[in-house]
């Protein structure tokens, strides 16, 4: 009798556990019906969040919900309709046929410690450093020391932009590179280590690190605007089709002089004209 009861209990336990797992594993993503859902690149996210706050103040009752996830996830979300708008910090690939608008450009700065005498590098040299072909600062006219290469993690939009713009198809970022998962962490390490080199969003360069000149061109906003500084990437908003209603109102707000000024104040480079 007891043996039978035990068996029953065990069976019930197993069944319950399995049922629970299946329920929760098959998770579903809900979305709100009111307001605009924007998802994607975490590089674009802080700026859009700021714009969304301002937009909500000006349009009471309407909300813009901003989520991260990365460029690819944002593009997929826009494609499937999980989000109204997707944020991307890279150009669309050929097979991604979506409506898109460039909202700003973001420069990428190659940064070194302020104590490092090296302050001008060519694009080939930067590529050489990250491919681990140049491994000592003396090869670049600096004080002899091993170069500590710092990169972003796989999947990061900043990393893929850097790979596209600097490494090209034939070089890869060395696996020996130290990997950090945010612009801030890269900056913090470069600020503390005199032998290190990293790359971060131009808007996030501060006095704790030194942005090197690239091919003799200073890494400043004006040079990106004039097209002299070659390391920059576009920030895009994408949608499945040309957006209407509140989504379009939000895009109009982002591209308005007021929106541009907000982005400019935060270190982004809004597009000139219209």
């Amino acid at each position, binding site marked *: 009798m007891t043996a039978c009861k035990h068996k029953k*209990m065990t069976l019930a336990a197993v069944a319950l556990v399995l049922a*629970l797992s299946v329920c929760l594993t098959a998770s579903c993503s809900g979305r709100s019906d009111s307001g605009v859902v924007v998802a994607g690149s975490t590089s674009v996210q802080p700026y859009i969040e700021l714009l969304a706050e301002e937009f909500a103040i000006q349009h009471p009752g309407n909300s813009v919900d901003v989520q991260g996830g990365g460029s690819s996830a944002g593009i*997929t979300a826009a494609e499937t309709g999980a989000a109204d708008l997707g944020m991307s910090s890279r150009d669309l690939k050929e097979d991604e046929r979506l409506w898109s608008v460039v909202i700003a450009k973001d420069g990428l700065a190659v940064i070194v410690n302020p104590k490092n005498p090296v302050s001008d590098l060519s694009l080939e040299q930067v590529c050489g450093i990250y491919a681990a072909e140049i491994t000592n600062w003396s090869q670049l006219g600096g004080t002899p020391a091993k170069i500590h290469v710092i990169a972003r*993690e796989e999947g990061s939009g900043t990393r893929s932009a850097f790979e596209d713009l600097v490494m090209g198809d034939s070089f890869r970022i060395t696996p020996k590179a130290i*990997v950090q998962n945010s612009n801030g962490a890269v900056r913090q390490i470069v600020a*503390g280590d005199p032998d290190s080199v990293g790359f971060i969003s131009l808007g996030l360069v501060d006095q704790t690190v030194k942005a090197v000149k690239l091919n003799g061109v200073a890494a400043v906003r004006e040079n990106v605007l004039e097209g002299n500084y070659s390391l920059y990437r576009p920030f895009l908003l994408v949608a499945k089709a040309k957006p209407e209603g509140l989504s379009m109102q939000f895009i109009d707000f982002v591209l308005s002089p007021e929106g541009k000024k907000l982005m400019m104040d935060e270190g982004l480079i809004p597009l000139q004209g219209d």
Partner: protein
Amino acid sequence: MKKFKERLSGRIFFTLALSSISALALITVFIISQGAPLIAEVGIIKFIFGMEWAPSRGEFGIFPMIIGSVTVTLGAAVIGVPVGICCSVFLAEFAPPAMSNLFRPAIQLLAGIPSVVYGFWGLLFVVPAVRNLFGGPGLSILTGSIILGIMILPTVISISEVSILALPRQYKEGALALGMTHWQTIYAVMLPAAKSGIVAAVILGIGRAVGETMAVIMVLGNAVAVPESILDPVRTLTTNIGIEMGYASGEHQQALFATGIVLFVAIMILNSFAQYVTRRK
């Protein structure tokens, strides 16, 4: 009526107990359902012994991270275990009551510090110290081992101390009566007798070190290459998940879950080994 109450309370406790196990089952089912397809696709040998990790190019080899986990954990054991065992012997045998009353809560407190605080402290103090003393980038196996060595201390100390205190009084009294000194008694009688408890303490400490993520993510440097010295940066299995989960989607995400499976199996083996050692008396 009374019988019904008895049965009801039994059922309630059973249900509550079940909920804790179902959490484990849920996690297991989820990790395996997400990660196993990728391991099957890549091939288990290629996944575990592959040297290259580049999910964006379809390369899924986690061998450098297995090496990373092993070296950092061994380093933590080398630093934490001797200190921990000595500390437990001190607490069990030498410390006057007033002092052990101060030490014990302090060690418990060490266990209560959140791991992110250890990591932040490591990044701001240990990393520059290692960089200035030994060279290299500072973010290294050595730094991670130091942090983890400190983090496993509470586990090692409390379990070893309990197992020393649990020894029958006769062991010590007999040894002393035979004319052995206090130190001789400790190393020739008490430590060997408490061996199984101490080994379990070490294994559980190692389990803690293998599973730690937040603290090491900040101080290890996370490079996906097999290290050449203890001053090189490495990535462990846990930090691989922690650092890349933010952007991962599709196969990349599956690969992170697959990393989780490997970790899960490793920790299960460690824990069952610890149980086996403590039960075998």
